[in-house]
């Protein structure tokens, strides 16, 4: 419970699972879920280093910024995905390979 390495390994596991989702999933929303996992693993590392680096709160502030970015990114990504669905009637990232019809 009081070891930095445990948190880093959990962060690495979340990162690898998120990466697996991004490279194997073909539904755009599932790819987005993988990206959220990756952002969470980065945040976990920030907070862990903050806690074991003498409780320096800069890590917390940075994690807050990452969460704000994730919210903005999710909103924009879903707007784009809905537009792609209206144009191509699919959200498969392999089929939607053009910017317009």
């Amino acid at each position, binding site marked *: 419970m009081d070891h930095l390495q445990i948190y880093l390994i959990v962060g690495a596991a979340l990162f690898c*699972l998120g990466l697996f989702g991004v490279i194997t999933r073909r539904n755009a929303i599932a790819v987005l879920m993988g990206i959220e996992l990756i952002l969470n693993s980065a945040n976990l590392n920030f907070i862990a280093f903050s806690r074991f680096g003498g409780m320096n709160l800069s890590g917390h502030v940075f994690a807050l910024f990452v969460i704000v970015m994730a919210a903005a990114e999710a909103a924009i990504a879903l707007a784009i995905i809905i537009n792609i669905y209206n144009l191509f009637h699919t959200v498969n990232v392999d089929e939607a390979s053009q910017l317009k019809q």
Partner: protein
Amino acid sequence: MATVTFWLIILLTVFSALIVVGSSQLIYSAVALLFTFVGVASLYIFLWADFIGVVQIVIYVGGILILVIFGIMLTNKITSVRISHTSVQRGAGAAAVVVLFILLVTMILKTPWLEIAAVEPDQTVASIGKMLMIDYLLPFEITSVLLLGALIGAAMLARRGR
């Protein structure tokens, strides 16, 4: 007791993340993502980051996950809960990711990390607020403009019949 809870939370986090990327039903992935977010929030609380833990639950579970579920609903013809989706190249992807994970774990275990002892703070909210208003004022303001721009842009993009 706390140790058992800690390991259960780690198990919950990693197992539900596994379901997120492994399940063949999109809705199941979204619900498993909820448990991953809650597990990560609990890990934040174990790391003395109470404020970030609560923000994680409010924004990720209350905001982003709802957005994702709305996205699923809007991009599928809903006839049942089972909205299947496919994965490609699972074997190659899994092999690459497992190799990466082994590399990362080896790196983490071999590096002599500098650990500075600290006492548990009473609360972190006041310190984070001061840092945001003194040390990180410019990034804070830029972030607010970015968020505003992103939300206006998202609303404009998603509007039908421009």
